[in-house]
């Protein structure tokens, strides 16, 4: 398709054409209407003047006879720019007036007539000045009335129509020009606007082609005019932003899965190999196999956690949202972990006075909280200070703050340095030290994923000393991003 062809096919250009036609028709109609009415108005005026003239002159005739009429007509006819007058005898002989060269038979009939004529003075001038013959050749047009006077005389009074015709022609030509100008300007404007729109759409099309080829970093051009194309581009850009984030997330997840699973798999393989090489008796094999099973259990655990996070991230678990009491969840988790904490020489307490109802996935929230408590127990050291004995080392809390429900786990362990805090909540980022400790090390990631699934967040802060982890969830559950 040629560039011009493409231009003519744009919606803008087609719209321009439609509007242009409508507007041109309208302009033509308006001017035509104006022209016709002006013409009619002038004709009416002439008619009035002529009628008045005739009734005046016939009055003069009635009072003073033909002599008086001839005198009056003569004097009136001599005024410059005056009406046309002609008084003729019964035989058609002109007696007075300023008109000549009337076509034959004009005076024969009474009433209105449109006729060509020449003024007498003009005719004389024309004969004197041969230089302007065109005036002689072009007789004027007049609207006249022939009136039969009693006594056989005929009176013709008329008025030149040149003025009327000239006005009519001015209006008509103005109409022609304006329609032409409207067409030219409209077409040019349409052309310009279409080309502008087309250029922007073409730019967007080019960008989408690049994006489709796999470069998700591209963004649609935004002109900054805030018009509908900009709004569209902005929305599409926001969509691309989201897609890119998801794609990056996916890539990151798969990279991390590869890392997280390959490390224990390597250990597993090494162990089996070593057993084959060095084992001497059944008990050696047994130990190696036990180790293998343990290692594969660990692998399964990591795999489950990763799947779980992926599910939470993808929002699949949103279907199972129900209303539940976060305080109850906190109490249950506290009850589950309390013996373990005690065994580690720690005091775990839940501080939940009021119900904290929220909409969410109870199982996932429980799991997230369990992970945080598990971490707290793992990293807390029992305190030696006898004065503080009895005060909880790990405090679990659930409460409302504004339109959010906060599930808090506060410990008095080593905490996380401030510089690492933001880092550690990011997906799959773990501090090196946590990799060497027992467990999958995905606890915080999972808690953060669960929080995000609910439209909330995981906040880490300093507990002076220790770490305070907060799962902040909106009461009403996740808000649909579309709204």
């Amino acid at each position, binding site marked *: 398709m040629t560039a011009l062809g493409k231009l003519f096919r744009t919606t803008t250009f087609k719209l321009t054409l439609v509007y242009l036609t409508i507007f041109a028709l309208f302009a033509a109609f308006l001017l035509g209407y104006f022209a016709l009415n002006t013409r009619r108005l002038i004709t009416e005026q002439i008619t009035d003047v002529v009628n008045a003239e005739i009734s005046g002159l016939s009055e003069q005739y009635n009072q003073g006879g033909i002599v008086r009429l001839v005198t009056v007509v003569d004097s009136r006819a001599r005024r410059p720019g005056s009406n046309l007058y002609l008084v003729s005898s019964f035989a058609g002989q002109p007696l007075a007036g300023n008109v000549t060269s009337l076509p034959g038979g004009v005076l024969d009939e009474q009433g209105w007539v449109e006729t060509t004529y020449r003024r007498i003075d003009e005719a004389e001038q024309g004969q004197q000045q041969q230089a302007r013959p065109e005036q002689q050749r072009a007789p004027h047009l007049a609207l006249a009335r022939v009136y039969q006077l009693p006594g056989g005389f005929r009176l013709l009074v008329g008025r030149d129509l040149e003025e009327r015709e000239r006005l009519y022609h001015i209006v008509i030509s103005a109409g022609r020009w304006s329609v032409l100008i409207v067409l030219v300007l409209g077409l040019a404007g349409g052309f310009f606007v279409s080309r502008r729109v087309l250029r922007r759409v073409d730019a967007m099309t080019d960008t989408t082609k690049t994006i489709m080829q796999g470069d998700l970093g591209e963004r649609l051009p935004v002109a900054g005019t805030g018009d509908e194309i900009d709004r569209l581009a902005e929305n599409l850009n926001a969509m691309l932003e989201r897609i890119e984030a998801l794609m990056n997330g996916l890539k990151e997840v798969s990279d991390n899965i590869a890392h997280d699973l390959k490390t224990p798999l390597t250990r597993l393989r090494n162990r089996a190999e070593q057993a084959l090489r060095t084992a001497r008796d059944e008990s050696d094999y047994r130990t190696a196999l036990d180790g293998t*099973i343990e290692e*594969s*259990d660990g692998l*399964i*655990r990591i795999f*489950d956690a990763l*799947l*779980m996070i992926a*599910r939470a991230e993808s929002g699949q*678990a949103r*279907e*199972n949202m129900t209303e539940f009491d976060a305080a109850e969840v906190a109490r*249950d988790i506290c*009850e*589950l*972990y309390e*013996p*373990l904490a*005690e*065994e580690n020489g720690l005091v775990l307490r839940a501080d939940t006075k009021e119900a904290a109802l929220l909409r969410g996935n109870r*199982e996932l929230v*429980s*799991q997230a909280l*369990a*992970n945080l408590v*598990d971490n707290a*127990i*793992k990293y807390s050291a029992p305190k030696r200070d006898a004065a503080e004995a009895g005060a909880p080392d790990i405090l679990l809390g659930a409460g409302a703050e504004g339109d959010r429900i906060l599930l808090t786990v506060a410990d008095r362990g080593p905490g996380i340095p401030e510089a690492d805090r933001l880092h550690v909540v990011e997906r799959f980022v773990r501090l090196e030290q946590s990799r060497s400790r*027992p*467990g*999958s090390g995905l*606890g915080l990631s999972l808690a953060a994923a669960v929080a995000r699934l609910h439209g909330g967040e995981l906040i880490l802060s300093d507990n002076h000393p220790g770490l305070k982890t907060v799962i902040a969830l909106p009461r009403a559950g996740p808000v649909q991003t579309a709204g």
Partner: protein
Amino acid sequence: MRLLVIEDDRDAVDYLVKAFREVGHVADAATDGEEGLGLALDGGYDVLIIDRMLPKLDGLSVIGKLREKGLEVPVLILSALGQVDDRVKGLRAGGDDYLPKPYSFSELLARIEVLARRRVGRNEETLLRVGDLELDRLSHQVCRGDQEITLQPREFRLLEYLMRHAGQVVTRTMLLENVWDYHFDPQTNVIDVHISRLRSKIDKGFSQPLLHTIRGAGYMVRDGAR
């Protein structure tokens, strides 16, 4: 016990059939849904072990057809889909228990034995007794010999579950699911600590221990004197 394994992975089937035989059960196998449904309809099985994803007829449809025909045989669903909503879907379809892959054989065995027993002893006794340990489910009282034992509510439920399945292996996951109603892995063995607390309450000071740890599998409440 007569068992039917419906699973399309031949290796897994062979392994299961052999393993069940080793512990004294009879196991038949089917490798697709239609064959499995036919065998199951012939009847005579104590527990069915059905994989969710099967050729010809998927596991949940097999269960649906069995239940339609009025077969009440307990069904354990095996599945690679292990999330909570998958489990809920499986149980809703008529399964009695749900075990995500990969599983350990001891876990599978423990669950199957519980399922088979549930069928035999449907009637819910109000007084559970193992040796000289008594648990009254109505009055929430626990006594060992003539000595009353005070338990926390959760400890009571834990002991109740163990005693209801006395003589059977109960795994940690089964306890977490049935006593705490959690379906996730708490990473650390929190259950062990709860058990040792319970053990110190019911076994401490008695010559005959009742709460046993079964290595590599779980726990069992059993009257050792018998």
